[in-house]
């Protein structure tokens, strides 16, 4: 999967089969959660210690402030605990992890984000929304909360509400990844093309080279009948990400609007060719059971949880959670990489050697898997 499709911008997701869509939505949400947590963590790191209940300001600080740690430690499953064999078991364990994190770090946005994302991933949008509303009650300036609530509102088809939330998020933190693009698309849905163009044209460091932004900008300009500028935007997408199929569709449409029939045909042909390949790939990716995919996402959650503990200075818990991630999804690389860094820092040579060996095996197995798929 190309890097850009892992961004939390559903507009660019390909359309899989019906059930596949459900699975992919889960994977995307999982990915988005992971990315979101990185984003949030980045922001969180940049914040000084706030008084209780105050908005978390920004400053670089890799540690979870001690005063945010309120709840008691409560034991979760260890690496040796049998991994649930059912979806329900995994769901139960994951939600318990989220609840433990929120209990222990009630004012850490990563913990809340993780729990809310779990609810969302398990199809409980209402509970995810409730989580973020609660956060907003305590942190009324939270751009992240407005962003998430905007995304959830979009998912529910509440376009006006979504635009309102996303606008608030964008005003507070225009560099929050995804917010610019989601706001732009929400405004487009409301037929506010000029406003959408203005938002998507806004120069934000984080999206300066984001092809998704330019793709959406191209479409907003098409809708606003700015065809030449639309073509420029789609060209930019092709420069940034030539593998992005939908860029060729946009480019072809813009050329057609400009009366450049020959060029339009060329791009339509390219689009059709790529689309055919995608359909074939989608067919190959059809899942009969998404349990392995859920395991993969659950492992990512454990990795993120471990990072939270690490930043709070609780290396033992961090290690336990990364080990659990590896147990749930044996091919997970990220947990091993985190463990490797931890063991190197701790000078535990035997553990370093063991994890390096595990990583080598994973890389080698994934390589052969990719070979089999002809990728």
């Amino acid at each position: 999967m190309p890097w850009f499709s892992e961004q939390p911008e559903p507009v660019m997701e390909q359309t899989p089969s019906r059930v596949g869509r459900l699975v992919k939505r889960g994977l995307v949400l999982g990915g988005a959660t992971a990315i979101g947590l990185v984003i949030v963590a980045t922001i969180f790191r940049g914040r000084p210690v706030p008084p209780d209940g105050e908005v978390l300001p920004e400053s670089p600080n890799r540690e979870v402030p001690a005063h945010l740690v309120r709840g008691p430690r409560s034991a979760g499953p260890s690496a040796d605990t049998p991994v649930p064999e059912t979806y329900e078991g995994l769901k139960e364990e994951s939600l318990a992890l989220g609840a433990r994190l929120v209990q222990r770090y009630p004012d850490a946005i990563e913990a809340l984000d993780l729990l809310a994302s779990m609810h969302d991933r398990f199809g409980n949008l209402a509970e995810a929304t409730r989580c973020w509303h609660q956060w907003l009650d305590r942190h009324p300036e939270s751009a992240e909360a407005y962003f998430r609530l905007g995304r959830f509102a979009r998912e529910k088809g509440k376009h006006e509400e979504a635009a309102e939330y996303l606008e608030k998020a964008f005003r507070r933190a225009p560099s929050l990844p995804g917010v610019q693009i989601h706001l732009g698309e929400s405004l487009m849905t409301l037929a506010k093309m000029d406003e959408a163009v203005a938002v998507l044209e806004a120069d934000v460091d984080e999206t300066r080279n984001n092809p998704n932004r330019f793709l959406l900008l191209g479409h907003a300009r098409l809708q606003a009948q700015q065809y030449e500028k639309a073509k420029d935007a789609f060209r930019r997408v092709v420069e940034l990400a030539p593998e992005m199929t939908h860029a060729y569709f946009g480019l072809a449409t813009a050329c057609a609007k400009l009366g450049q029939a020959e060029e339009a045909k060329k791009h339509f042909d390219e689009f059709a060719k790529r689309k055919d390949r995608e359909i074939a790939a989608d067919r190959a990716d059809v899942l009969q059971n998404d349990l392995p995919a859920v395991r993969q996402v659950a492992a990512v959650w454990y990795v993120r949880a471990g990072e939270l503990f690490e930043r709070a200075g609780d290396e033992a818990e961090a290690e336990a959670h990364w080990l659990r991630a590896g147990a749930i999804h044996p091919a997970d690389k990220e947990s091993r990489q985190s463990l490797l860094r931890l063991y190197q820092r701790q000078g535990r040579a035997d553990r370093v050697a063991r994890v390096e060996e595990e990583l080598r095996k994973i890389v080698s197995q994934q390589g052969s898997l990719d070979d089999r798929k002809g990728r």
Partner: protein
Amino acid sequence: MTAKGVDRTAARAAGACLTWLLLVSAAGAQSAIRLRDATAESGIAFRHTDGSGGHRYIVETVASGLATLDYDGDGLTDVYFLNGAPLKGTPWTEPPPRNALYRNLGGFRFEDVTQKSGVGDTGHGLGVAAADFDNDGHLDLYVSNYGPKILYRNNGDGTFTDVTRRAGVADGSKVGAGACFLDADADGHLDLYVANYVRFTYDNHVPRTIRGVPMYHGPRDYDPSPATFFRNNGDGTFADLSKESGIASVAGTGMGTVCFDCDADGDTDVFVCNDVRANFLFLNDGTGKFVESGLIRGVAYNFYGQANGSMGADCGDFDRDGWLDLFMTDYQNELPVLYKNLGNGFFEDFTFRTGAGAGSLPYVKWGTGFVDFDNDGDLDLFLACGHIQDNIERVDDSTAYETYNVLLENVGGKFVDVSAQCGLRSLPKRSARGAAFDDLDNDGRIDVVVLNSRREPTLLRNETANGNHFLDVRLQGVKSNRDGVGAQVTVIAGELIQRAEVHSGRGYQGHFGTRLHFGLGQRQKVDRIEVRWLGGGLDVLLDAPADRLLTIREGSSRKERGQEHRRGLGSGRDL
């Protein structure tokens, strides 16, 4: 842009949003459309089955469409429901589920005439179209099944005869979907387009578990299937010209279809919804040879270039520019798509600009129709909704298996969700599939019939009371096919100009609207009616009073040497 610039933009956006919301709320509150559930008093006892028995075959999810038609020519529109059949592994019941024909007795009362009429097919019914294929003055029925299809010839005495074998239109064991009659070569005989869904068999079905619960498969789990095109030989038989016509040159996952002259070149083209694949637009060269042109013409994908889970489609001139536009329903988390005809048979996705997706995003959308519910002279949109997964709530609380239908009122070319105001939100939630729209009580207001999966249907009586006028037009072909399928009618009343075409097969794998309906607002007469028959004939009629059904016979009012003759307004009668 600076941070301040961003703030200003955001503030402008918020201001504009507020204005839009105020407009939308005002329009919604003022909607005159009222639909009342009249199912209980209708006498209709039909109950749908999708043939399910726990195996979750894909063909369960797409059942079924329905048709509204006046089969007995008494001036009252009757209803034909398709039904599923017990699929492999589902216990057989006696009597088996069958399709059902309900005769309209007037006053919104219906009588089950299935047995008497002989149209109670027990196949797994998915799509249906009605047309007078033999030009004998009586509407016939084509039933598109999973498995052999059925052609019922109307005997004209309230009964039908299964003529499938003689006609040669059974089409094997394919998974049939939407079907349309069209006169592809303008020879006066209606040909038949039958979309096929996927290459499903019991043998290639594989159980699937997602999020810990059993789920239905999607169309991408199966190979696509080319459609079938039957040419009418004019003697009661058809020839399979799928390859020769160009129709079978591409394979799709066909569902709803609608045929219309998209480029005003005088012949009938075919639009096909393909589920999670590019939609097809088959352009006719006038001789019954087609070239698939969906991508170039702008209807293959939505405006992002995404292939939606396309379900049902209808066409109508929503912006009254004289060109027929397309509206298409689709899957959860996809906006339905309004393809505006740009005036030359090229289309552009105008969904955002018109609000045509309002209120429907979280739902799976099926039956649809461009319908003037309030007779104000513009076309509103109805969307029948319901999920394919009967357990979807267990894994996704943003949608539902059973939900409300959506009605979007056309307010100056923008669509406003008036579902609550018109009464749809007061009805029980259902998992709708097909929907048909016709004036069932001849009161000049278009009513609604919705086929609900695994349930009784819903009949919605239009009780909009705004005093608006209307004109209904029924065509009678002489040189062209008997019901004027493919003919375009333009109605001019003052500054109000409307155009519509007679279709056979539309919406979600169904049929409705053989009688064309034009809302006139407060206008009490029509100044001019033009009928452009397939094959080139033109009839022009002047000064027709409103609030009546006008039957126009081909050639009854010719235009000669620039002179317009007011000879005979056909057989008009007050409704």
